[in-house]
């Protein structure tokens, strides 16, 4: 089995994997980082979004082997020094989650939106940018509020 090495949440990891292993399988099964979820098999739901070299990607649609040497951040790596990321705080404060299953991907996407679009986001922009993340519980209302609030908080 070929070997892959990458940095996940700041730690160097490497493993021999079946070539078929997707990044999300590598994270969930090899590293037991189960915060990254799988909600579909057609790259649409966004439950599996993580950051690779600072950009949001769907970890169900990339081979682990492709990411040799990459720097991966998952939901487990977002809080720093025991302090929640402002976007995590904003999701809790605005009741932007119910069952919590889409939440890790939703938060990782939201941080990426702010990284790309800045800290002042209008409703239309947020709704459009969330195109690749499905939530079945919230009707998105509070997620939209949380992303706007989290974006502002990230400026501080």
């Amino acid at each position, binding site marked *: 089995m*070929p070997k892959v090495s990458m940095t996940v949440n700041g730690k160097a990891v490497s493993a021999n994997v079946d*070539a*078929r292993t*997707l990044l999300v399988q590598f994270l969930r099964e090899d590293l037991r980082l189960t915060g990254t979820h799988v909600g579909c*098999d*057609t*790259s*649409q739901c*966004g439950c599996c*979004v993580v950051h*690779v070299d600072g*950009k*949001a*990607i*769907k970890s*169900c*649609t*990339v*081979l682990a*082997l*492709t990411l*040799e040497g990459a720097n991966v951040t998952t939901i487990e790596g977002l809080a720093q020094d025991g302090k929640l990321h402002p976007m995590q705080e904003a999701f809790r404060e605005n009741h932007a989650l119910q069952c919590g299953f889409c939440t890790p991907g939703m938060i990782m*996407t939201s941080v*990426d*939106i702010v990284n*790309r679009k800045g800290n002042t986001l209008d409703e239309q922009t947020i709704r459009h*940018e969330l*195109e*690749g*993340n499905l939530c079945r519980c919230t009707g998105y209302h509070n997620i939209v509020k949380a992303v706007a609030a989290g974006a502002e908080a990230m400026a501080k």
Partner: protein
Amino acid sequence: MYQFTYHRVDSARKAINLAEKNEDAKFLAGGMTLLPTMKQRLASPSAIIDLNPAADKLAGIEQRGRAIVIGAMTRHYDVANSKIVQDAIPALADLAGMIGDPAVRHRGTIGGSVANNDPAADYPSAVLALNATVFTNKRKIAADDFFKGLFETALEPGELITKIVFPIPSKAAYMKFPNPASRYAMVGVFVARRGKEVRVAVTGAGSNGVFRASKFEAALTAKFHVKSLEGVNASADGLNSDIHADAAYRAHLIGVMCRRAVNKANGK
């Protein structure tokens, strides 16, 4: 997925050499179509030749004279956000920004999209309407000769797109009516005017993939204005019918999207 052997390559040359040795090999670029297809076990390549380590060599955007040159491994996100593209062909940047979703745009590549020629993909309409030239490791192929039908192109086995050259139009716009579910183009119309030539390319609608709408082109060549399109209708013949849109509706939408694209290109 079925088993495959995995090859990591850091240059186009190595990729091509490997492809010559592995008949059923597939190049892996962004993987946004290939990997889901493999996951569903609808494709079973014997080998995967991963171009990502060669991405730095195969990606990039530059202006050369009156043309924009985009490397095959350039990601949709980079095309959408390129100052060069936004200034020279804003319609192309717009189009790239409408593909998939942000996470897909971070991975998907122009070369992969064009080589795949999905009948509902966005890029083929730009390549065709802008009369782009597709460069491969072997030759250059004019847009009109490149697209050959559903998922079919002029590419030969083992042939790899290296870059695509887009002549800069005087006016252009892309209007997309997304499939409500997949958000692929249900009807996408790219209009472009360069010199006296007007080209209108339609994606998502044709049962044989992207095509040029000659009636619309003729009307707009006379005068590039939405009024030229009065009474010009697309035929439903040869258009797709599915649960989201029948051929008549798609034909209607081609007209609507074309008019809106012309208005947009004219700054209205």
